[in-house]
Structure formats: structure tokens, C-alpha cells
């Protein structure tokens, strides 16, 4: 069983040869080619017996080993031996093995680095800044909360009576249903003094648009129109009524709407 696992684990013929060299504690630059070839073939036979698919590279290497072995065993002619001085038939194999061994070791190093650096995390999301709006709606400004506070205070000044100052009292505010013509007039005038004009239907809080309130507001506007403080425009029957300011501003100037 263990030999099978081993066989499947070899990356290729060079890997198998390196394993044999390592196992036999052989110097890669002086490979006992006969022994190594025999052992290599034993492995291939074992693979064959186990019906493992032997990659063609393994067979090619086997042929190569046998060729080297034959060259080593054949007696050389004298002049040939002189000519080939230093050119060992194993040389090419040794070079290949050394080269492969180098990268095999580097691959272990890479595996180690991969493992270590996978412990590092990078920031992906969560920028402190909100996204931009790409809509064309109005102009855009960049503000701090203090600006928001100022924006709010300005609104507050303009529309003081409209505000429930403390959070939590909302239910009381919403359910407030007491309306008088006088209050409504005051409210409408306030809106007119800041906005210059408004659409009648916008005067009401949707949830509490009671008949009393609509009637009261309508009466208030009629009085304002009658006293020359406001004018009403309606483009078509049943369309929204536009209420427009008439008369003087605080600074004495006179204008019609905005």
C-alpha cells in the first residue's frame, strides 16, 4: 500500500530518480548507473503490476537510463576514450537532475511562504467615507455635523412653531389635532414669509389630514387672501392650489412670491 502511494506521489521520472538517489545516499555527480537503473525499472514494474497509468515520460527515462548504462558498460576504443575524456555519459542526466533538484527545493520554499503569507489579511471594505451621490438633485456640499446643526438651527428659526423640540414626544406631536383659524393663519404666514409660496396640499401632515384641519387651513387662506396678505393660483380645476405671498417683507421691500 505504501509503495503505491509513493509511486503516485512522484511528480515525474526526475523526481523518482531523486528519490532513489536520496534513498541510496548517492552523490548526484557520481551516480552508480547500473544500480539506479535496476531500481528505477523495479519501480516501473511495480507500477505496472498495480495497473498504474505509467506516464510516457517514465518510459522515456527508462530508455535513457538503459542507453547510458550500455554506454558505460561497453569497452571504449582507445582513441575514442581519449576523445571523450571528461565527457561522462551520465553528464546530461546529472545536469538535469541537479537543475530539477534546485527547483524542487525552491518549490518547498514557496509552499512554506505561501502558508505563512496566507496568515496575512488585507483590508477590502469599510472606508470611513460615504459614497458619492451621482444624482443631479441640487448642488452638493461637504459638511461636518456642526454644519448640520447650523442648517437645522436655520430651519428652526424659520419654522419655529413647527418643531417638536425633544425626541420621544413624537406621538403627542403627531396626534395633536387642535387647530384654530388664528394658528393656521400664523402658520401659513410664516411659511409664506420664508418660502414665498407653497402648495396647499403640502400644508398637511399626511397621517393627520383631518377634515377639520383642511377646512381650517382653507378658511385661514381665504382670510389671508381677503386681507391682501396672500393670493391663490390654481392652474386647473382640482389641481393643487398654489398659495403665494403678497405684501411687504420684513425689510420693507415688496415682492410677489420669490
Amino acid at each position: 500500500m505504501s509503495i503505491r502511494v509513493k509511486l503516485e506521489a512522484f511528480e515525474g521520472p526526475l523526481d523518482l530518480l531523486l528519490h532513489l538517489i536520496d534513498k541510496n545516499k548517492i552523490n548526484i555527480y557520481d551516480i552508480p548507473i547500473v544500480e539506479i537503473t535496476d531500481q528505477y525499472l523495479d519501480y516501473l514494474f511495480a507500477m505496472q503490476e498495480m495497473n498504474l497509468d505509467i506516464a510516457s515520460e517514465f518510459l522515456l527515462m527508462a530508455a535513457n537510463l538503459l542507453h547510458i548504462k550500455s554506454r558505460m558498460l561497453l569497452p571504449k576504443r582507445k582513441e575514442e576514450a581519449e576523445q571523450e575524456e571528461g565527457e561522462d555519459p551520465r553528464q546530461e542526466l546529472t545536469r538535469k537532475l541537479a537543475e530539477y533538484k534546485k527547483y524542487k527545493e525552491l518549490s518547498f520554499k514557496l509552499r512554506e511562504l505561501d502558508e505563512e503569507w496566507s496568515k496575512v489579511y488585507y483590508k477590502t471594505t469599510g472606508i470611513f467615507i460615504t459614497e458619492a451621490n451621482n444624482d443631479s438633485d441640487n448642488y452638493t456640499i461637504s459638511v461636518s455635523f456642526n454644519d448640520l446643526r447650523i442648517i437645522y438651527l436655520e430651519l428652526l428659526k424659520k419654522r419655529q412653531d413647527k418643531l417638536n423640540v425633544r425626541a420621544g414626544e413624537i406621538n403627542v406631536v403627531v396626534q395633536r389635532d387642535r387647530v384654530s383659524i388664528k394658528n393656521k393663519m400664523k402658520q401659513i404666514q410664516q411659511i409664506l414669509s420664508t418660502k414665498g409660496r407653497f402648495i396647499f396640499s403640502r400644508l398637511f401632515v399626511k397621517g393627520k389630514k383631518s377634515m377639520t384641519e383642511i377646512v381650517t387651513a382653507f378658511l385661514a387662506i381665504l382670510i389671508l387672501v381677503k386681507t391682501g396678505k396672500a393670493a391663490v393660483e390654481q392652474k386647473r380645476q382640482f389641481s393643487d392650489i398654489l398659495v403665494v405671498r403678497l405684501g411687504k417683507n420684513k425689510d420693507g421691500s415688496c415682492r410677489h412670491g420669490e
Partner: protein
Amino acid sequence: MVVADMESKNGYDNLNTIFLQDMDVKDDDEIVASVIESLLFISGEPLSLGKITSILEIDKKRVKKVIEHMKEVYKDRRRGIMIREINECYLLCTKPENHDYTKELCQSGQKHVLSQAAYETLAIIAYNKPITKAEIDEIRGVNSDSAIAKLLERNLIRKAGHVNSPGKPILYETTEEFLKCFGFSSHDALPPLE
């Protein structure tokens, strides 16, 4: 394993020296600080005290103490980030005084801009939450539909139930994202109106 046999080589950011450090959170506040910085760095969302505590497996008081200390350390002007606290949640953000530079990185796509209408609406909700759209409209004197939609989309406000009255109008309130964007640690920390 083979890896263990590899000898030290130059050229890879001295990771090995870093690995030599022994890690024990149990008795070292410095390591607790280091881990908290790591956690806050990778967490996109504000990280709750509870979550930090459960990861570190030390008690809340100690985590809080270390974070308070870290906040002080971050004040060093060499630092470009700081810890923000929002409702017992923590997150890292850039220092506002570097805005002139950071904004250049965040140009298209990430600028901090809303319409005037949206800011007005946001201010009203922040000071009057929970509040209905009708009331917002009333204060602003104009319809705030699109501003509210924008703020909801940006997660700066959220629905906070209904008023128990005809039509059941929706109530709105500001979110933690709002606190985060405007630099508050809780809703109680809003600047007083007057």
C-alpha cells in the same frame, strides 16, 4: 515537514523575525493591542466590544482599558488613523486633519456629499427622531421624499416603526452609520442645539 528544514534566506520582508515572537494574549496587554488593531483593520464594520472580547477570550474590562490606551497612542501626530467608538463598537478611520490628502484618493465615487435637501432632512431627523416624513416636510416646507429615499439608501437613517394614528405614518431615525459619518460616539453626543 520539509518546510521546517529550510534555512533562512534574504529577500522576503523579514517575515521570519516576526514569527519568532511568542504570542500570548493572556498576560500581555501589548499583544492585546496588536490583535485589536489587526481586527479593527480587517473589519469593515464597526466591531463590537463583545465580538472583540469573544475573539480574544479575555474580559471586557481589559479590552476596554487597552482600547482607551490605544486611543491615546493614536493621537501621536505620526499616526494617520485613529479609533472611533460608536455605541460600544469600534472602528478605525483616517484622521480628519489629513483630509486634504485623503480626499484626493477618494475622489470620484467616495466623496462625502449629499444634496442640501438631504442635509436638511438629516439634521431634522437627528434632532427630532423618531419623526414622520410629514413632519419633516412641514419643517422644511417642501416635500422630502427624494431626500429621505437617498438617506435610506445611504443607510444614514432607517425606519423606526409607525405612529399609532390614521395612515400609520412611518417614523424615521438616524443610524449608526450616521454616527460614524459625523464622528459621534453615540446619539447622546450630538452637539446641543443652543
